[in-house]
């Protein structure tokens, strides 16, 4: 009796195909992310605890920034304090093949830390501790660059890792 039109969502057959393709792509991307994370070990920074940015001078390890040798020739740690407008330390030298873990925090505003040619790319935030690692298989100079605007001197803020053969 009712002449009300039939209600349904009506998806065109071509559109149905496109929806399947889209969902397929998205699932494929998710699988690739998981593979990169688990099989290749490419991890993003995670929660590493907190620190008081006003008392870094009085608190180890931040009161003594710099390189620590864990396993000579193989494994190193470096503690870096970012302040306007420089990194402390500014220069680090490690041997070829070294795995270096970068720990960083800020004594003032937000900074960034991106190491050329590696997957080390993290924010450096006052009150927080950032950590990522890289292995240097090629000798050369690698700049670490502040990539967050931190004030008028921001463009000059960088440091260098020298990898010796």
């Amino acid at each position, binding site marked *: 009796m009712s002449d*009300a*039109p*039939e*209600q*349904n*969502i*009506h*998806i*065109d057959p*071509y*559109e149905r195909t*496109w*929806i399947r393709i*889209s*969902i397929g*792509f*998205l699932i494929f*991307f*998710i699988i690739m*992310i998981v593979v*990169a*994370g688990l099989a290749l070990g*490419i*991890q*993003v*920074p*995670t*929660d*590493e605890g*907190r620190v*008081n*940015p*006003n008392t870094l001078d009085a608190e180890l390890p931040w009161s003594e920034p710099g390189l620590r040798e864990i396993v000579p020739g193989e494994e190193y740690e470096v503690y870096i304090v970012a302040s306007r407008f420089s990194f402390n330390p500014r220069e680090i030298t490690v041997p070829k093949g070294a795995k270096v873990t970068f720990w960083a925090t800020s004594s003032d*505003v*937000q900074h*960034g830390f*991106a190491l050329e*040619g590696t*997957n080390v*790319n*993290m*924010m450096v*935030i*006052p*009150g*927080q501790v*950032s*950590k990522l690692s890289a292995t240097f298989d090629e000798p050369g100079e690698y*700049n670490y*660059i*502040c*990539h*967050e*605007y931190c*004030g*008028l001197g*921001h*463009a*000059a803020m*960088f440091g260098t890792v020298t990898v010796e053969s």
Partner: protein
Amino acid sequence: MIEDRVTQPTRELTRSEKRFVGIHVIFAVAALSIGIQYGPMQALEHAGLDLYPKMSFLASSYYQGLTLHGVLNALIWTTFFITGFLTLVVIKGLERPLRYPWLNRIGFWMMVVGLFTAAIPILGNQATVLYTFYPPMEASALFYIGLVLVVVGSWIEGYGMYFTFYAWRKENPGTRSPFVALAAVITMVMWQIATIGIASEILAIILPSVFGWTSGTDPQLSRTLFWFTGHPLVYFWVLPAYLSWYAMLPKQVGGKMFSDSLARLVFWLFLILSTPLGFHHQFADPGVPAGWKFIHALLTLGVSFPSLLTLFTVVASLEYGGRKRGGKGLFGWIRALPWSNPSVVWQLLAGLLFVFGGIGGIINASYNVNLALHNTSWVPGHFHLTVASAATMSFVGISFWLVPYLTGKPLWRPKLAAAAAWIYFGGMVIFSNAMHVIGLLGAPRRTPLGTAPYVPGEWAGHLWRIGFGGTIMWIGLMIFIVVVAVTALQRKRLPEDQLVEVPIAESIRDPQMTPEWLDRWRPWLIAAVVLILLSYGPQLYEQITQIQLTSPGFTP
């Protein structure tokens, strides 16, 4: 398929309604016309030609110029244009006046007061904090108060639209709401939900610290609250463009809307998925656990699904129109589209650039892949394809019918206006490609690369392309500004029988055939809130209960 339905007699906007929408457009275009002056100055600085010392009356530093560029273009031009355009869409779509016009007026004038309040410190170099204003970098209190007034003003304009939509519902029980009006109101509701983050960041953390009531800010929590709003902000820019592509552009090319149901579904999906994914801007943050970042990465890939649907539906609507115009063969319908219509060509090119913006967006969202590009110049390269292409080019296209509609005057030099689309498009292709490339090479964003000591000589070619492309883009938008200004100011009027219409396309199928669940608010609103609680609740609870106000403010 029902081909030709009886269309209702249409109600045009009254003089005062037109004036109200028009004043939004005036403020929007005025902001854009100042904001874009800094674009080529930044781009040319990269290319080695630093104009800032020579033009110190415009800005005292690269960063003050960048702050003006970001705030005026990305926040003011967009917000004023969007609220004005959506007001028109609600009135015209529902064929009824605003329920409480005074409410919308209060909202609008609050935005204007906010704009001037924030402009004073920015122009006085007291708020050179860029448009992300990450604490503990600190600006004058007026800057934050101004931003809050703009946001709250836009909320109030949204409330005016909700009441109008509700009144229409009461008057028209059982009828499907017109798609354009529904889409406009969904956009404003999404904006309302999403901006709670930025409002709490400013009101609860930043202002108390600026006023000296607290010992400082918690920068990590501030970032989390900022990005609660920061990504949905992109959808606030893009959804009005989608509205136009779905329901207006098809009419302008002589076609119809391909699917009323799917268009609604897409907007509902944006309502529920726009907000619970902000951690994908914080993949490189230390204070957010990696597991939560991964969950937000999945949700971000989820929100690309409605955009992929949009790609199909919009192209299908355009093909329908192109074939009706006599286009034949696999690609003939593309040539048959009215490319000489300035409003159409700006929007077609906007959509084309957004394909690349979308692909880049999926790359950005891909968790560990993000480390290759986070905070590099890839990122501004990307968002110039979204806010400066998809949104801005669509708003330019819309203006080319909107200004003649509001003023009753003919568009001045339509051929020039259409040519400007290609100029801007060409500049954008050159500029954004070079930005993406040097980003992958490691160039940081927000940095005067012309003076940075670590920039290697090999980047010179890309930096030159950035300067060249940025300047071309500026020419394209300057033509737009001149065309709409002359159009509005000229004496010539359109004859009564040639008045411009608001282009609203019919859908191929009767909207009454759309299922009722695609026209009901409650389930979607509940889903939106639940999804936010699940994706943000635990981290917000943890970060708020462990708040440490240990970062005193620093002036830039």
